[in-house]
């Protein structure tokens, strides 16, 4: 499997950190942008992005492709996305296994689907069309979900594996999403990670979530919790050298706290590398 080279340890680029990033050049290897936030005619967001991408690799992460929607693919959106990709020259472009609305409405959320053969064929066909249009392999992420369906004919990780192989796409493994969904639906998160095709995983997302006791919600407004760090270690052992990053979208801490989380990733990875070197010796 031909994959983009790993980028190291990255951060979701958010406006609140623009100035500090530009002035202090923190030890961050790359940035992920939310594509839609830069699909604009001009102004500060694009100006900041131009300055930051001059010094750092950038990847584009979208939330509105609506790959699982039964509405027609939105080619106006895809044209804007393609134009942004031509401008930004990202290492890759990603979006989610989700739908965001039907009948022309958009709910600005990553909505769940039953994991059926019909859903699978539908999503695979749309990923292939998007890849043809963008002329690049798409990176597709597992979303957090809060409900699951009796109509599902396969597990989520079986769906992800089949989808990736049939559409010949790459994968963004959101470790926090695996944990949140496994808690909400009662599946084994380790089995999920073991079930996805590791050779197609090019990126990890790490984030915090909200624990409501009976369910957890993917809010990106907390530090990464211990259970997700443990799952990260497992994902790293299984998938090897994969670009990893922290997503934070609310309750923003000082940048230093996010740098500490990146350092935690580095420490875990260094420990794994050391163990692997010792066992190979």
């Amino acid at each position, binding site marked *: 499997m031909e994959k983009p080279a790993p980028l190291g340890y990255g951060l979701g680029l958010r406006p609140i950190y623009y100035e500090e990033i530009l002035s202090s050049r923190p030890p961050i290897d790359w940035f992920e942008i939310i594509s839609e936030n830069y699909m604009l*005619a001009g*102004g500060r967001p*694009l100006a900041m992005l131009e300055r930051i991408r001059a010094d750092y690799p950038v990847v584009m992460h979208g939330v509105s492709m609506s790959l699982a929607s039964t509405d027609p693919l939105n080619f106006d959106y895809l044209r804007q996305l393609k134009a942004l990709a031509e401008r930004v020259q990202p290492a890759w472009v990603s979006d989610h296994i989700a739908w965001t609305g039907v009948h022309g409405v958009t709910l600005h959320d990553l909505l769940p689907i039953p994991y059926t053969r019909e859903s699978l064929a539908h999503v695979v066909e749309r990923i292939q069309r998007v890849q043809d249009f963008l002329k690049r392999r798409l990176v597709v992420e597992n979303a957090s979900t809060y409900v699951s369906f*009796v109509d599902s004919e396969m597990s989520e990780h079986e769906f992800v594996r089949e989808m990736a192989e049939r559409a010949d796409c790459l994968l963004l493994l959101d470790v926090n999403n695996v944990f949140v969904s496994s808690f909400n639906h009662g599946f084994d998160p380790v089995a999920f990670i073991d079930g996805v095709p590791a050779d197609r995983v090019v990126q990890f997302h790490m984030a915090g979530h909200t624990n409501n*006791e009976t*369910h957890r919600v993917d809010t990106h407004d907390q530090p990464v919790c211990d259970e997700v760090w443990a799952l990260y270690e497992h994902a790293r052992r299984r998938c090897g050298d994969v670009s990893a990053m922290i997503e934070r979208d609310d309750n923003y801490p000082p940048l230093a706290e996010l740098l500490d989380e990146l350092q935690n990733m580095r420490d875990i990875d260094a420990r794994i590398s050391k163990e692997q070197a010792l066992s190979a010796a």
Partner: protein
Amino acid sequence: MKLADFQSLFQQRVLAGSGEADKPLLKKLRPSPRGATPETLLDVYQTGYRIRLADFVSQDHPGLRAILGDETFDGLVDDYIDQCPSRDPNARWFTTGLPDFMRENARWRDDGAAVSMALFERAMVDAFDSADETPVTVQALAGFAPDDWARLAFEFDPSLTLLELVAGTIEAYSAAISEEAPAKVDKPAAGDHIEYAAVWRVDHESAYRQLEPDEYVALSEARAGHAFGDICQMTAFQQAGEIAPERLAQSLSSWFEDGMIIGVRVRGDDQSSNTPSSA
């Protein structure tokens, strides 16, 4: 159930909340292994949707919240979300229809001060991410012969919007966004009094300035492409007496200083206009 039917049901639940129509959807849900009720789990999507959209409106309309107060503002946002579901994949565009919704909706259209603030704030948001252009300085005029000055026409930054507002809108907005912003700002009295404003972007930030009536007319005409000399000949400025040309020159200078002008050209005879639109 076909995927399309499932998605229609699910979306209806998110848009309308719980009700009789949910029954087919509820039958499709697996029970939560943690004991969460189906209603609770579906509400994650429904409340998330409404909170997200309300947050977009709040971010773009601090002045409107300040003059309406939290309760009335939240009522407006609820009405808008209920009646105008988002249709653009980019959340940036959700709020852009708010002033039009207010003008067309029986509950809000008579609140002239609120509509005025919504229009002003939409212009601020639109200016923020409009197309990039490079302003020119007043030095650009040095390249033209004095004989051409009367025929000079100006190109303005695409972010520039000119607004006719309820008097007091700008002052209320300034109070709402000031560092010591009070919880509530007095709503301007919506009467016959109006004020004029220019909104544009400079140094990556939206900017605004109140305009005197004559400057508003001059700027409107200049932006419409009329030559400086033609604007000076307008009835409005002729009636203003001898100081009019001097005031117009001051206005032109400030447009340069404010970064509103991105180009200067000599208007050709074939384009000259002796009848500017609002003369």
